[in-house]
């Protein structure tokens, strides 16, 4: 075993140029795989983050007639304990209202949030473009587009007509920009208390929103949650509501896998053919070793070890190249403001997987020459000089 390894190492060292070329071939395959993989993963994470990163990923609503949840504190605790993936669990009291300002009416959605926990989802403190958070009683924040369209500024009073019937007045404390025009136009954000009094919810809320540390687990976690919480509550998740996005992501993943598989197949063929040639190059040596009594299995091992060593060298070189390429890409392919166009996602597990894959593939590729070596009859070499 050790002898076969030593011979393999010596063979590789003896023809350094050739060894370097094969290792480079594997390395380029690995680096393309890592680069494309990181790029696609980065793209997907970016896409998922911009589309669902700032929204509720699992939402619990009531099935009752009023669609309201009573006594929600125990529910929040129950949800928090149910799965460790869940984060930013926040109660929401919301309702449709007609907002009027300067004799114009606007249909809006008033969302009463618990700012401490909701900030994890909506990052409101970062997205406030003017004024302050609407923490006070009967204070609200409006979206940037609504503020521009209606000419409402911080400090103005606006009035709401809700299901309660009587118009109520609230003060605009701040202006937010959620970077989605639709939301900036229709959302009005307040504290839970303000929303509850606007809609006369008393101490009830309309939903519980939350996010997950692994967004793609949303469907599984939601299902679990549903079974824990029972029929009175309805658990929705973003996956069920974003089928188009999901199929887009899937398509991307599949095309990325396809590229990776074909890159690896071409690497496999390359290594196999070069190693097949090295058996012919080294047939004299194998013949001598066999005449000296090396077993066929050990003679095969020499080539398996060569494949393994080349795979390891190629994988290491490929990781360096791939990560270097990815780094260069984020450094040089940038927006005018210096931010990378696509933030690559360097996933150590994925890189390790590519490396293991490359090593396995090159070892597999060396099976062909290993078989040849095992079958080589020393007399062929001795007789033909």
């Amino acid at each position, binding site marked *: 075993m050790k002898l076969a390894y030593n011979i393999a190492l010596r063979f590789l060292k*003896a023809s350094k140029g050739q060894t370097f070329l094969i290792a480079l071939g594997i390395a380029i395959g690995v680096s393309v795989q890592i680069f494309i993989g990181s790029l696609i993963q980065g793209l997907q994470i970016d896409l998922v983050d911009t589309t669902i990163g700032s929204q509720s990923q699992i939402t619990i609503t009531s099935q009752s007639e009023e669609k309201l949840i009573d006594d929600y504190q125990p529910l929040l605790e129950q949800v928090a304990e149910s799965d460790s993936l869940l984060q930013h669990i926040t109660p929401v009291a919301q309702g449709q209202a007609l907002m009027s300002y300067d004799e114009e009416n606007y249909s809006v959605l008033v969302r009463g949030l618990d700012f401490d926990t909701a900030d994890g989802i909506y990052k409101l403190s970062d997205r406030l473009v003017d004024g302050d958070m609407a923490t006070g009683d009967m204070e609200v924040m409006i979206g940037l587009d609504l503020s521009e369209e209606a000419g409402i500024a911080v400090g103005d009073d606006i009035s709401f007509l809700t299901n309660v019937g009587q118009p109520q007045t609230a003060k605009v404390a701040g202006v937010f920009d959620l970077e989605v025009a639709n939301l900036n136009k229709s959302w009005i954000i307040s504290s839970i208390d303000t929303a509850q009094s606007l809609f006369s919810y008393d101490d009830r809320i309309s939903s519980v929103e939350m996010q997950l540390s692994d967004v793609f687990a949303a469907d599984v976690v939601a299902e679990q949650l549903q079974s824990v919480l029972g029929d009175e509550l309805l658990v929705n998740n973003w996956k069920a509501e974003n089928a188009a996005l999901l199929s887009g992501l899937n398509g991307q993943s599949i095309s990325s896998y396809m590229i990776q598989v074909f890159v690896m197949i071409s690497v496999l063929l390359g290594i196999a053919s070069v190693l097949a040639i090295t058996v012919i190059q080294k047939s004299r040596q194998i013949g001598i070793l066999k005449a000296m009594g090396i077993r066929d299995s050990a003679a095969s091992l020499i080539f398996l070890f060569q494949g393994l060593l080349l795979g390891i060298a190629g994988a290491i070189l490929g990781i360096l190249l791939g990560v270097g390429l990815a780094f260069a890409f984020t450094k040089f392919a940038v927006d005018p403001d210096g931010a990378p166009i696509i933030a690559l996602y360097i996933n150590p597990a994925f890189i390790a997987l590519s490396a293991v894959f490359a090593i396995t593939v090159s070892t597999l590729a060396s099976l062909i020459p290993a078989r040849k070596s095992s079958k080589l009859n020393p007399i062929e070499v001795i007789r033909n000089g």
Partner: protein
Amino acid sequence: MANVIELKKVNKEYGTQIKTKVLFDIDLAVEAGSFNSIIGQSGSGKSTLLNIVGTLDQPTEGEVLINGKRTDKMNKNELASLRNETLGFIFQFHYLLPEFTALENVLMPYRIQYGKVPKETLERANELMDLVGLEKVKNNLASNMSGGQQQRTAIARALMNSPKIILADEPTGNLDSDTSETIYNLLRDINQKLGTTFVIITHDRRIAEKADRIIEIKDGRIGLDI
């Protein structure tokens, strides 16, 4: 003295469609500790005979016994062990591994059999290098040595596992006559000191005459056996 090599009615044919018979009913016995030379014209079948004795080639018919054991009953791994432990080869074109140093080449048969090289074995390999007069170049790569040096390395390698039998196919075929002389004297010395059995193919009559026994192969048959 017991026979270490015994050939019984050995025939050898090459080719599947057009058959060429190379050896005809060879009966041969070689005593332990003897120094034998095989002579004959090229194409007479002497190399084939030696390769059959060395288990590198198989006879079409007949039996080969090494140390009294039939080689045709052995599997590939047993044959490999037999070659490793009992037989030492010296070929015409020295056949060293060019990727390894002279000393590593000499140690190779030991490593094939036992793996790790203990200190005593390393010492023995060094002694063998001294014996063939290569102490100064033993750490050179095989490809960086002269023909004579390579041939002497091959001899040291053949001796490494203290085989009972050394088979040599024109070991001095491509060396000048002075070097040939040195190498034959060396082989003879080893034969006398260690009692190793030698079977050597040569076409150099001068050298053949120094052997205990001369076997002449003519057209695949034993022509002369002195």
